[in-house]
């Protein structure tokens, strides 16, 4: 396989083309290294004149060529770069300026926008889509949302080829953003049995607009300009939503019990999956009642939910999920590619077009690595990203093993002990200096 990677032509294409190769996880890091560095340099040379924030980075760091993994480190953008826009742009509905900000991180020019013709942030996103800019928005646990721009050229999804013989059961509210919609459509196309209907979680979808509303109210609270009536309205809407989320568990449990003879593909986040599983058990159903060929896809980590230690087993056992039908990915909104979970080794396989870079905790320096397992701050260069810069520093602490996986695949893999640095910090340092954030209660 090494021959494929070392052949002439664009390194980016050679690596991204492996998406259809059955042995794509079977290349050693050493085999891939030269092609990955060449591909990152190709991307860099092409993008440095287009992405303003990258040009600025390159100039500050004095980098004109990517010749090694070290060279790319000063060019990586922290995940927070995608939420570095001033909040006032949202507050004051200055869509034109938000567009100018987006232009500094986008590969393709964001056309000037007429703020008077844009209703709200959802409309801003819709209008951008017309010009080929697909903005996805992360539902950050606190504060502002990250705005990630992508192009039409970006193909989402993992290229899973499966028979369309399952009924898909979504057990989590989904943020309505292009990345998630595209992923959802891709999965539906390959999995959903055309003879049954996909079950959607019965709660209103989360839009970018609804996420930003919260940010705006929070900021107005901090400034002291939010009125008690506005807060009361907000509390009412929050309570309605909380009720919908609560009711959804029972409704979903009923629906999934009714569909228990079907071959199901269950998706969701751990907290929602656990709650539905518990409701199903409480109603007297368990593994024996469900189809032994059921499959599951779980996105993301715990997201700060507090669950019993055996939450995974509890969910698998409830829905009769066999280990080989447990599909999980390690990914993040900042990447386009997912790293699928290995069926054997409690690990996630890194595809060849995603270059793993293990950094120190502060994200400033590449850690020396060799043939072994190493721990550090996760950074990745996703060569499949087109609409923005592919190099990103995450907030995750991960362990990467650069040796072959227990399953036999020769590629590097990530251990499933991923934690967010933010969750690890939890220090008790306090100071007299602080911000008004400490004075805003209940809006987050």
């Amino acid at each position: 396989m090494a021959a494929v990677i070392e052949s002439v032509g664009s390194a980016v294409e050679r690596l991204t083309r492996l998406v259809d190769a059955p042995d794509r996880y079977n290349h050693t890091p050493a085999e891939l290294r030269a092609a990955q560095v060449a591909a990152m340099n190709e991307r860099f040379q092409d993008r440095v004149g287009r992405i303003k924030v990258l040009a600025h980075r390159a100039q500050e760091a004095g980098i004109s060529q990517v010749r090694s993994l070290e060279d790319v480190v000063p060019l990586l953008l922290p995940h927070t770069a995608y939420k570095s826009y001033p909040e006032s742009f949202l507050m004051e509905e200055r869509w034109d300026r938000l567009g100018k900000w987006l232009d500094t991180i986008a590969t393709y020019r964001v056309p000037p926008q007429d703020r008077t013709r844009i209703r709200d942030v959802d409309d801003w996103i819709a209008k951008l889509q017309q010009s080929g800019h697909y903005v996805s928005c992360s539902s950050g646990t606190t504060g502002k949302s990250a705005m990630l721009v992508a192009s039409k050229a970006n193909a989402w999804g993992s290229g899973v080829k499966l028979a369309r013989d399952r009924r898909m059961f979504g057990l989590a509210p989904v943020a309505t953003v292009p990345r998630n919609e595209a992923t959802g459509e891709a999965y539906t196309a390959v999995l959903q049995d055309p003879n049954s209907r996909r079950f959607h979680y019965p709660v209103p979808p989360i839009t970018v607009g609804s996420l930003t509303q919260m940010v705006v109210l929070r900021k107005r609270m901090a400034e002291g300009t939010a009125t008690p009536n506005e807060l009361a309205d907000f509390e009412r809407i929050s309570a309605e939503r909380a009720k919908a989320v609560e009711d959804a568990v029972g409704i979903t449990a009923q629906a999934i019990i009714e569909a228990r003879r079907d071959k199901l593909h269950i998706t969701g986040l751990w907290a929602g999956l656990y709650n539905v599983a518990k409701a199903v058990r409480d109603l007297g159903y368990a593994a024996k009642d469900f189809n032994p060929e059921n499959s599951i896809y779980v996105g993301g980590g715990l997201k700060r939910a507090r669950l019993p230690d055996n939450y995974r087993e509890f969910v698998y056992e409830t829905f009769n999920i066999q280990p080989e039908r447990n599909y999980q990915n390690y990914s993040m909104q900042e990447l386009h590619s997912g790293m699928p979970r290995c069926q054997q080794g409690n690990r996630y396989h890194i595809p060849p077009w995603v270059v793993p870079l293990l950094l120190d905790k502060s994200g400033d320096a590449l850690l020396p690595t060799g043939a072994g397992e190493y721990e550090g701050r996760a950074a990745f260069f996703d060569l499949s990203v087109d609409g923005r810069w592919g190099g990103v520093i995450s907030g995750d602490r991960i362990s990467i093993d650069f040796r072959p996986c227990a399953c036999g695949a020769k590629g590097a893999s990530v251990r499933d002990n991923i934690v967010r640095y933010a969750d690890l910090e939890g220090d008790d340092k306090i100071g007299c200096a602080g911000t008004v954030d400490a004075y805003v209660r209940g809006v987050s």
Partner: protein
Amino acid sequence: MNAVPSGGQRVVAAETVVSAPFFLRGELVEGSDATHRSRDLGVTFATPKLDLSRAVHPRTEVPPLLNVPLAEIIEFLVETGRRMTAPNNPFIRDCIDRMSSTHILPRAVLEGQVQGAAAYLDQRLLNAVVEQNFPDPRALDQWIPKQDYTGRKSFVRAFAPRLVHVLPGNSPGVAVKSIAQGALVKAINLFKMSSSDPFTTVAILRTMADIDPRHPIVRSMSAVYWRGGDDKVEQVLYRPQYFDKIVAWGGGDAINNVVKYLGPGFQLVSFDPKTSISMVGRQAFDTTESLDRAAELASADVMVLNQEACVASRFVYVEGSQADADRFSEKLQQRIAARAAASGDVRPLDMELREQVNTLMMLDDEYRVYGKTDGKGLVIRSDEPVDFHPINKIANVVRVDSLDDAMKYVNVATQTVGFYPFERMPDYRDRLASGGAQRIVRLGEAGPSTIGNPHDAMYPLHRFVHWMAHEDGTVTS
């Protein structure tokens, strides 16, 4: 960075562990039963096991300081200050050695802070603090006879309270101040130290024990560490049976953890997290000299404790044109950088902050950045305050047409407002107070404060004590 749990190569050598002893009601307790981490420099420190029973003084015994005259307490504190600054004090020297390995500020700044902190232990100053806090300071020493207009007689005492102090870690000065204030009100004090400074308080208490290990003031003091929010400790200690009041610095999680334990008999005296700002009027642009002066004064306020303290200015509202604000910003940046360089402060900006500033550099028709994101001092000029909290030698110059327009940026977290020119302060003080601010000073004077003045909109000592009444019938005429 930790070593990986298994299988792989270890990446980082074992770290050094710094020892942090406790002080319990007069006695030093050493040990390394538990290790904790300090976030700022990622250093580990070891403490003895916390004996919860020794941290509490039974209510059946009156506080040891109750009948020690205030004058004697002040004398003891003054002697403590003298010994703190003595060059041969082993406790303080050792403390600075340890602290410079865990604290974010440079060693010279820390040494200066300990010296500066000791200055609080001055006889005139301590007397003034007591006099400003109590209409009749004799109430600390005795039962003061009173009589109301109906002829009803009573005695009132500012009775010695039982206090838990949750100390911040950003200024050793607070440790000295808290010890002094706790002593002045004759309290039984338990100091919960912060992970970024688990040393100073104990070093001062050891200095005091060195004067007289059996003195009631020494027996009234305990300093320990537990991880803030640790229910195993707080659930046990935070009860009215053990303490009357919790004196806590900081906000957010630090306070939220404390709040759940409040109830009848267990009250919170909070020193809130604050942001300080500056206001520079158009008069600064009258002459080159006035501009230089305003920039110099503003830089002094920005760089108080290298911008680690709440009194340090972060936002400078400048009344003028964009060109004026730019001229001011340039001069301010030069002076911040000069002060940073003089103190040897080269702490780099963290990744996220750097990214925020870099983004603003890119939006160059609305923001202008003076200096670089290299941690040597920078100024951002904008038309409204930036979203992030400027720290580590960063000032945000916000241009306004009139200082009246800057009043909307004053909020409940605003502490000190440095003002230029000084004559305009009376025009603004009511609006500043209404907005939530607590203190208005001449620009350049954020650091010093008038002795005995209110702090965080209260007279703290007055709130610390357990006001006790002894009613003694009515005078028959």
